[in-house]
Each structure stands twice: as C-alpha cells, then as structure tokens.
C-alpha cells in the first residue's frame, strides 16, 4: 500500500481527536463537552488500532469510552439541578493559552527531534496473551501496587461520602 493511502485513516482519526478536543473546550454546554470527550476517546482507540495495539484499543474503548465518559455524564447529572446550569461562560484566558502554546511548542520540538531507536521494534506485534503473561510475571509488583492504590481510593471515597459518625 502506498504511503499516501496508509496515511488517510491516520489523518482522519487525528483530525477527529484534535477537533473533538477543541470542541470539549469550546462547547458551552457541559453535557455536549462530555459527548465530545467520548468522541476523542473513540478516535484515540482508532489510533491505537492503526498501531496494531489491539489490546490498548480494547481497553481504551471499554474503560475510557465506556466507563469514564459514563462517569462524567453521571457526575454532570448528579450535580446539576436545572437544565440551565449546564451552560457555562466561554472562559478563554490569555495565561492558559500561553501555557498551552508553550507546552505545544516544547512537545512539538521533542517529537520532531526524536529519533526512533532501530533495534527496539519487535518482529511481531505482541498480543493479549503475551501482555497478560508479562503483567502477572514480570510486572507483578506494579500490578499489586496498583491494587493498593485502588484500595486507598476506595477508603477515601467512603470516608468523604460517609455521613455522620455511625
């Protein structure tokens, strides 16, 4: 397949991701912003597919597009009493823009100057089986720490959500 044809899906997905991200900031309605966020997450899942990272694409769809965006919508639903509360003023401050521009320039310079090391690319894309084996053998320590982190989050959430002393 010629380069130019292979680039088409990438360009489409990248445009969807960047445009959606801009719409998250620009849309006045919080609920609309949440749906644009969902669109960004799905576009990123597509980008993972292009990189043959099937498992990551699946996780992106299930965890981010599936769970996180529903969580965002639930939060919006539970915290807003009236329909009008979902509207917010468009707050575009210069300082935030400057910081964003600075980060863009820095990361852009980094990406442009990055030279991919030749030896690293594996012959075959590792699949879900290899990923799982790695996770439960070599990566057992970080995996266990992650579960402790989740336990901490649970204890904290229960504390804050709890009512008077029982």
């Amino acid at each position, binding site marked *: 397949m010629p380069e130019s044809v292979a680039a088409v899906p990438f360009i489409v997905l990248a445009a969807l991701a960047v445009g959606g991200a801009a719409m998250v900031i620009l849309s006045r309605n919080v609920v609309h912003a949440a749906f644009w966020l969902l669109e960004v997450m799905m576009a990123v899942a597509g980008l993972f597919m292009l990189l043959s990272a099937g498992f990551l694409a699946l996780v992106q769809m299930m965890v981010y597009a599936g769970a996180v965006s529903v969580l965002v919508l639930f939060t919006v639903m539970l915290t807003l009493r009236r329909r009008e509360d979902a509207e917010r003023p468009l707050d575009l401050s210069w300082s935030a823009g400057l910081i964003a521009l600075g980060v863009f320039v820095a990361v852009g310079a980094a990406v442009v*100057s990055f030279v991919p090391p030749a*030896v690293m690319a594996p012959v075959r894309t590792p699949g879900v089986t290899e990923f799982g084996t790695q996770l439960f053998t*070599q990566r057992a*320590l*970080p995996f266990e720490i992650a579960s*402790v982190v989740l336990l901490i989050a649970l*204890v*904290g959430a229960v504390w804050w959500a*709890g009512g008077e*002393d029982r």
Partner: protein
Amino acid sequence: MASWTLIVPEGLLLAGALVALFAEVLFPGGRRAGAWSGAAFAALAAAVSIAAGSGAALFGGQFAVDPATQVARTATLLLTSAFLVWLGGAGLERERVREFAALVLFASLGALLMAAARDWIVLLLALEAATMPAYVLMGFDRGDDRSLEGALKYFLLSMVASLLFLYGMSFVIGMSGSTLLAASRLQPGAVGVVAAAFVFAGLLAKLSAAPFQWWSPDAYAGAPAAAVAFVSSVPKIAGLFAFARVVAVLAPQTAATGPLLAAAAVASMLIGNLAAYPQTDVRRLMAYSGVAHAGYLLVGLATGTVAGTQAAVFYAIAYAVPSMGVMLVAAQYGATLDALRGLASRRPWVAWATALMLVSLVGVPPLAGFTGKLYLFTAAMRSGWVWLAVIAVVMSAVSAGFYLRIMRAMFFGTDESGEAPIAGSPASAAVVVACALAVIVVGVASSPLLAAITFAK
C-alpha cells in the same frame, strides 16, 4: 537473610492499615485502637527494615534496597510510628481516628515503595500510593468547606503533577526501550531536555517547590493540623529520595538539569522564606517554611554530585523530624500564634522541645538542621555553585525571624483567653519531646548517619 525480607516492611504496613480499618471490631471499646495498633505495626516494620539490611534487587531489578534506601525507609517508618503514637494519645478534635490511621499507614507504604523503586512504572505507582492518602488526610474534616477546598486544590495540582511526570516518563521509556531507571537513555537535543523537564516539573510539584508552591499554604491552612504534620514531613523523605534517584540517572545525560534545579531552588528559598513572615497561622507559616526547605534540598540535588545528593537525603530527614514535631504541637495546642501564647507556662516541657526544634529548623549548631545545612552548602561550594550556597546561607539567616515569632508567642506571650489549659496526654507530649531529642541525636551523631547514606551503583 533471605532477600525477600526486604519487602516485609511493606507487607507489615499493609496489614497494619487493614487492621486499623477494622480496629473497633477487633479491639472492642478502644476508640483509638487503630492508631495504637498502627504504631505497633510501623515500629515492627522499622525493626524489620533495620534487621533485613540491604541486599539484592527483587522483581527483576524493579525493587532494590541499598544502604541509603535503608536509611530513608527506616526514618520514614520510625516517624510514621511516632506520629501514630501521638495520634493514639491526642486523638482528633471531632473526627474518629481509624480511617486516619489507616490512610497514614497507606501513605507510609507508598513512601517505602517509592524509596526502593528502581523502575519508572513502580515509581509512578508508588508516588500515587503515597500521595493519594494525603488528599483524603488534607480534607479529613469532611464537614468543613475550607478543608475540602484546600484538599481539592491539592488534588488538582497533584494530578497535573502526576500527568507531567507520566508524560516525561513516557518519553524517557520510549527513548531507552526499558522501564528500568538504570537503563534510562536520553537522546541529545530537544526531546531529552523536554522529557527531563517534564519529569522534574512533576517531582518539584510533589515536593511543593517553586514554581509549583502556591497550593500548599491554602491546602495546609484548611486542613486539620494533624494531617499537615504528617503530609508535610514524612512522605517528603521518600519523595526527595526518589527525586535524587531520578536526578542521578538523568543529570549526566542532559546539561539542563543543574540550571533547572538551581532556578527552582532559588525561587523556592526566596518565596518560602519571605512569604512566611506575615503569617499568623502556624500551618501557613510551616507551609512556606516547607517551600523554603524544599529549596535547600534542591541546592543539594542541583550540584549533581554524590556528596550533594547524600547531603540532601540527610537534610530531608533533618527537616522532617522537627517539622512534624512543631506541627504536632500546633495540632494539639492551637494552630494560630495567638493560641500558642503562654504555652511555656502551661506546658514547659512541650514549649522547650518546640523551641529546640524551631532552632534546628533555623540551623543552629549542634542540632540536625545545622549539620544538614553545613553538608548541603559545602557540597554546593565544592562543586562550584558558590552563589547558590551564598543565597541559601542568607535565606537561612532570614528564616530565623519567623521561627522566632513562634517562640516569642510561646515564651513571652500571656494567655489572654482565660480558657482552661488544654489537657495533653503523656503519650503525645512524649512524642514531641522524642522528636526534639532526635534532632539533637541526629545533629551530634551526624557523621555515622551520613556515612550510612551510601548509594549502590
């Protein structure tokens, strides 16, 4: 001893946290049983940490304890245990203790893992495990809007810091093709500088160093003083230690490290010491003092030498002990300067111990603060950062002013409130006095401790 004993302290802390959560069921009638059992578990973990020594790497090199790590871990555990003894003695003003004790143990567990992490992913997760309990501790007064506001600010900034760190880390892993810290390779050019800058920015924010310091006074002033006592001191030892590890790996590969860290050091020292002056709330004052001390620590890291790193780890311990002690006094006897008026006549032992710790924070010989600063500033002079050392010395002298204000309130102020003196428990007063004694011991016996902080290569 078998090498797996190295990770036993983590297991004990996890067990302690779970026991603390169910303490009221396990020990019926003991309202503060969670704190007491947690203190016992932490003390046991400290003993195991001393006995296990240092040794081979575990988990394929992702976790290792060298002599310096052992010192940092043992200090963290001893301080955790002391804090929980204090909590068992003094309790909290309105809230129950058991979740507090459990979260303190979780944070300590994260700190231990952070000190021993030799892998980027383990480091990131340990950092999260150490800071996530801190969000809840800072907002532990769940009925108080100011406490929750401070906790929210802390949470948001800390999350941004984590993301910066994660982003920089992903660049480093991409360049080196391995997640092990020791295998990190930075490419020359913009990508190496940007990756290092993101990693450092994340760690600076976690250390509450400038220019990421603005959250800490608000968060500390809203939080329960007991939470500030723990969050502002104990996890910083391991945080600084992990920072030192990362600097040791990245500094030789990019020339930007020294100037970046030196700039952050100067900004932290200036902002911290000057902004502390007008404060009347001890929590705000100690927040700015914490920013200033982060600046001194960065002086050591900016040198990029082994002596500077050793001195920074030593000073992190020499700072954590009195910082925790002073905040514990504030937690028990009142968090404003007015509330501390006349403490010397009501609680002479506590007042004298506090005075000693404040003097150590200024840096008066022969206390721990003095020897720590001496090591730091000599390391800076020897590696050519003379101007940085000069600023640090001047700013230490400036800091005497605001610490003395606390002392003046304790010794020369008279209690005008007419309220009955607050009852102090023997255990909590003993912890404060023990902190003061530790300041003397660390100061006098500084050379063996500094010699113990050796890094395995």
